[in-house]
């Protein structure tokens, strides 16, 4: 299971914004922190704004800020905006008929996807921020 680049950028961004919902964070700050182009990130942020998760504020001191509900919004909600999760776990062999081996592998991959989906669906932004804080504490110790 591997998330697409835009999905990862969206998760990074939403976690950054949700950590301090009152603060307007310029896109360039997040782009620099995660080593991506501001242009690329802008498309991701536009999608998040369209979904009502962040809002953009223009002008001096502008940027984006979190406007979602961190106790309700899950990682899966964000992921679903950018990819059809689990839709293509296994690359299809062009022009080849599905064999029983293909079908058996699909059963295994489906099991993995369903567990991953449950994990992403059960972790809210609020829980994710707790996890981040825990990582920071263990790093500091």
């Amino acid at each position, binding site marked *: 299971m591997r998330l697409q680049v835009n999905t990862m950028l969206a998760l990074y961004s939403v976690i950054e914004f949700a950590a301090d919902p009152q603060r307007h964070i310029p896109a360039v700050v997040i782009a620099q922190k995660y080593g991506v182009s501001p242009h690329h990130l802008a498309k991701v942020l536009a999608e998040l704004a369209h979904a009502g998760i962040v809002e953009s504020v223009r002008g001096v001191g502008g940027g984006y800020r979190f406007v979602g509900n961190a106790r309700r919004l899950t990682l899966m909600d964000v992921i679903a905006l950018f990819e059809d999760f689990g839709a293509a776990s296994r690359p299809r062999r062009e022009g080849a008929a599905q064999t029983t081996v293909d079908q058996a592998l699909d059963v295994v991959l489906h099991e993995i996807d*369903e567990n991953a*989906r*449950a994990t992403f*669906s*059960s*972790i*809210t932004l609020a*829980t994710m921020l*707790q996890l981040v804080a*825990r990582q920071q504490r263990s790093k500091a110790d």
Partner: protein
Amino acid sequence: MRRTDLDQVIAIDATVTGHEKRPYWQRVYRRYGVPSAGEVRHFLVAVRARTVVGFLIGEVRDWEFGSPPCGWVFAIDVAPEARQCGTGTLLLAASVAAFRRAGVRKLRTMLSRDNIVILSFFRSQGMMAGPLIPLEMDLAPPAGATPAAAR
């Protein structure tokens, strides 16, 4: 938990699951609601204004598949109208305190991956996926068994 609380526990479970399972809950009460020498088990209820608004059942399980003793929570629920008030958090904290007193240092639970509400609750309390993998398989009824006999 008192015997007189059981009807309210059954009612909460029936509201949440859509099925009243009175014989099951009576067995659970006899096993977990009554102190038993040598066993660490608890059947906790949260009461607000003399009304039961939530419950939790847990026990210490020893050496399942070689796993050292750990606290297991195998049932928790809060009446829908009493949610988002910290009731589940209080129940779990009381359970954790009991497990700590019993000397265990690991808390586990298992639930359906479709049960996102309870799954999210446990996540919010700091629980993560553990090293155990639940497995299951379908069992065919015995040859010649009728549906009634299979029950």
